[in-house]
């Protein structure tokens, strides 16, 4: 028992630094921002000492901002769905790769984008899609078009760039779900008379729900909170909440409004993520002791 006590003290001691660090540098600033979001500003963008809901009212009564909230969620949802659809075949191929070299190769293709900066990844889309970029260059050379197409500076470009950036986060959990599946379940289903497609819909798909939900959670939060990519690829005019926040901070200097927007964003993301997590928990409870 004495060993156990000594151990416990040691273990608690190990946990403390990280927790303290996070409390000071993560929790505290978030709380401070929450408080800030209830402050008022004057016409010179100075923060006043008074507290009220004025910032939140501002957010929810300004058309542009309300639209931004809606389209942020909508874009994130679209990104999530597209990612899941594309991730499935990619995960399948990764898991079923016939030899380990091929599998390692796919892994590198999958994970190396994650380790480059998001600026770089987004920049590549600019090179590809801009008026004097690669695609236009090729199409013009082949004389398929006469004038360069304008493919950037719209929401679709943003979504495409998002999907490319966030796809690995959807592929990996689904791949994990696939490998976690008992390898005899597919043969069992086939021995009972179900063909490959039937087996997929009745057995494989349901059992990869945890992977899909996990992937969805990650992709949704990333997409809802991104601002670099839409800035570079969508143009400043896109109605997205993270962009509005960036503007308020870096250009307008209205920190309380930015704080209110941030918390609105945070709440939106939290609501969706909690919903998905709850569904995941229910599913896991059904399947495990």
């Amino acid at each position, binding site marked *: 028992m004495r060993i156990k006590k000594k151990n416990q003290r040691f273990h608690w001691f190990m946990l403390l630094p990280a927790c303290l660090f996070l409390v000071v540098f993560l929790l505290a600033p978030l709380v*401070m921002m929450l408080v800030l979001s209830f402050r008022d500003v004057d016409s010179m963008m100075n923060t006043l000492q008074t507290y009220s809901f004025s910032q939140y009212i501002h957010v929810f009564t300004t058309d542009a901002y309300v639209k931004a909230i809606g389209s942020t969620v909508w874009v994130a949802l679209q990104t999530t769905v597209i990612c899941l659809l594309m991730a499935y075949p990619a995960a399948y191929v990764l898991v079923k790769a016939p030899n380990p070299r091929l599998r390692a190769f796919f892994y590198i293709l999958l994970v190396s*984008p994650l380790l480059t900066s998001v600026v770089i990844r987004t920049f590549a889309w600019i090179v590809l899609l801009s008026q004097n970029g690669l695609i236009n260059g090729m199409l013009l050379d082949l004389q398929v078009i006469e004038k360069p197409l304008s493919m950037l500076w719209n929401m679709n470009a943003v979504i495409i760039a998002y999907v490319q950036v966030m796809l690995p986060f959807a592929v990996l959990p689904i791949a994990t779900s696939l490998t976690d599946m008992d390898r005899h379940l597919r043969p069992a289903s086939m021995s009972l008379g179900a063909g490959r497609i039937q087996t997929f819909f009745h057995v494989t798909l349901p059992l990869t729900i945890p992977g899909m939900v996990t992937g969805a959670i990650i992709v949704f939060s990333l997409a809802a909170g991104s601002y670099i990519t839409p800035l570079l690829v969508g143009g400043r005019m896109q109605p997205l909440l993270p962009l509005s926040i960036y503007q308020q901070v870096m250009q307008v200097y209205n920190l309380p409004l930015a704080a209110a927007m941030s918390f609105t964003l*945070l709440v939106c993301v939290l609501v969706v993520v909690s919903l998905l997590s709850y569904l995941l928990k229910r599913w896991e409870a059904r399947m495990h002791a």
Partner: protein
Amino acid sequence: MRKKSIGDRLLSILIWTTGSLVYLFLTIPVLVIVLSAFSPNAFPEFPPTSFSVRWFHEVVSNPEWMESLRISVILLFIVTPLTVLLGTMASYALARLSFKGKEAVQAFILSPLMIPQVVLGIAMLYLFTAMGFTGTLWALVIGHVIIGFPYVVRTVGVSVSNLDPRLELASMNLGAGPIRTFFRVTLPLIKPGIIAGGVFSAVTSFGEISISLFVSSPQTITIPVRTFNYIEQTFDPSVNAISVIFIIISIIALLIIEKTIGLSKVM
């Protein structure tokens, strides 16, 4: 499954084609960037007509880029040991402790990965301004550590869960205290997870922009921030050269991770 009728065969082809196309889609940016970096023109052409390394020369001879490189590398050497330290300790503690609310603490420790980075960015900006050191190197250090150390927690967590706790029990049975056991038994065995986590954290720090953009000052412009400015303002094609360097770094990092704990377990 080796049985294949015509229908099955078609299905296989479909799946493999779709899957491969997805991987191709993922790889497009890399291909584009490599093409750009070695093209003599500001905008690359496909098929490429000539090969040039002028952008690499430009980067190396540009004092601004070199200054940013200096900042990024210094950051790296400060941030990585910190994240490894914090992350390893926290991960090990979480694996060995059990208490009510442990799941909540675990979620808290990993939360920086889930909070929208724009929110993190402005929260830190606000905090550092209030504390008086925004725009300094330390502001960047703290920001990078916050988003870097959850990676270490995850990779070390994998290593720790593969570690048989009875090894530690055996060590303590033989008279070694928990500290000694940790250093003599545990640490060597979770080295792969630590290395992988360190690499992830280092590469993340090197490429971090979302928070850095908020808390940096003209004296502390990291490479990604400068890249962003260049793209926004001037469109200097030397950005391509920087990008290639990033890609090479990421591939090396990946190989290190694969060698140490294996990629499949990390995410």
